[in-house]
């Protein structure tokens, strides 16, 4: 049984060694992430990093879908400094996931838009249920899926990245498989994610740490580029929202 679940509104951490799960549970908002939820998620990743009993992390959503993106009702950026402070939230989280010396397994169902798709670029294994819709919908809001166009370039390749970023088009699991955003299509993604995470939790920790360090070697540079060009874009969008 999970012990001492740490709670935050709409988000919880379940620790069930050797696994930990971060569960997004805000179905009334289609699991959109508020700024406090992003901050809580970052804290949870830190707790997982420091807990030696935990050897793999599962990320999943409760309800109709995985995550519909960031909650734009909280988007208000009067100046570049405010935008910079906001950006630290998601970017630090993505970096923390890549730097976590433990495998990160994501279970998708229903929908994964915006943040819900961007976080896949920092995940080690992504399982999705048939019928799941994915998409980098930022452009719909006058935004840029900055992590896709920086960190995502060599995950999904330039041509496809440009198309997904510029059109905001929603894609199905088959296309997401081709783009390597999703690795496995399976009927019960949450159960399968636990199973995969348990398998990965069995590998030698020093080997996992090294593989993840090598895979994540360029992450900080990629995220620094996003940090650099995004703030003015965010200020612009606050005007148009």
């Amino acid at each position, binding site marked *: 049984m999970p012990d001492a679940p740490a709670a935050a509104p709409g988000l919880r951490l379940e620790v069930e060694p050797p696994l930990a799960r971060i569960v997004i549970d805000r179905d009334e908002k289609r699991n959109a992430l508020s700024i406090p939820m992003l901050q809580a998620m970052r804290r949870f990743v830190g707790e997982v990093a420091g807990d030696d009993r935990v050897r793999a992390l599962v990320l999943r959503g409760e309800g109709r879908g995985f995550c519909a993106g960031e909650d734009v009702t909280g988007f208000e950026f009067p100046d570049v400094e405010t935008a910079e402070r906001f950006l630290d939230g998601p970017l630090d989280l993505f970096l923390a996931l890549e730097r976590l010396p433990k*495998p990160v397994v994501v279970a998708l169902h229903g929908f994964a838009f915006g943040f819900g798709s961007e976080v896949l*670029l920092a*995940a*080690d*294994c*992504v399982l999705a249920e048939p019928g799941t819709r994915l998409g980098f919908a930022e452009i719909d809001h006058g935004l840029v899926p900055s992590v896709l166009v920086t960190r995502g370039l*060599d*995950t*999904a*390749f330039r041509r496809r990245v440009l198309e997904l970023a510029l059109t905001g088009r929603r894609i199905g699991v088959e296309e997401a498989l081709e*783009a*390597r*955003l999703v*690795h496995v299509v399976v009927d019960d993604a949450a159960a399968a994610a636990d199973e*995969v995470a348990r*398998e*990965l939790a069995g*590998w*030698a920790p*020093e*080997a*996992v740490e*090294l*593989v*993840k*360090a*090598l*895979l994540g*070697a360029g992450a900080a540079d990629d995220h620094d580029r996003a940090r650099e060009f995004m703030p003015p874009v965010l200020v612009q969008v606050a005007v148009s929202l």
Partner: protein
Amino acid sequence: MTAGTAGSGVRVERRGDVLVATIDRPHRRNAADLDVYRALEEAVGDESAVACVLGGGGADFSAGDDVAIFDFPDAEAARAFVVEVTRLFRLVESAPRPVVAAVDGYALGFGFELALACDLAVATPDAVLGLPEIVHGAAPPNAIGRGPDVLGRGLVRELALRGRRWLTGVEAHRYGLVCELHPADGLLAAAVALAAEAASSPAFRSAKRLLALDAERAYGLAPLVMPRLLASPTVAASRARYARG
């Protein structure tokens, strides 16, 4: 036809102007030891050939490093081994002539990384390509260094961390690791033809030099990070399991 380097575990022959080096240790599923690395380096560096094809004798390309040789008393001993492996990959990428892999059966670990380092690769549809290092407490640094350019980081992540998730030849073709599929009985001839065709292009050398510009980054990681891991108790335990058979 010239017979090559007896006892090295690699057969070398000529098909016209193309040199064919065949890893020939079927009793170990063509797993590579230091003699194999050195013989392959020699073959890839042979300036009398216009191109080089690397293949496997029997049913497999190469099932990996022969873990029987993973007997490293300390990180320094492991470093000598890692430097040798990395030297082979660098030579493959810097050779001013095409190097083509012909992949049938298992191409795991070292076999996968070697096929990845080659300029081009052909395979049978049911070839099996994967990175099982993590299962043994090791890691595939060269596949992580070079793989994202070819396969995308998303797929490399999955292969390197899941360990037992292996690609078929058909999948490897779809993802771009392999450029042609052929039945086993026509595989070598197809690889030789492809190698000769690539060698006949006057621009081949320049194109390859351009493509290899970041090889140093791709292969610079292994000697820095691998020695300590290879000298770890988990790897030693894995070797002991294999030695018992």
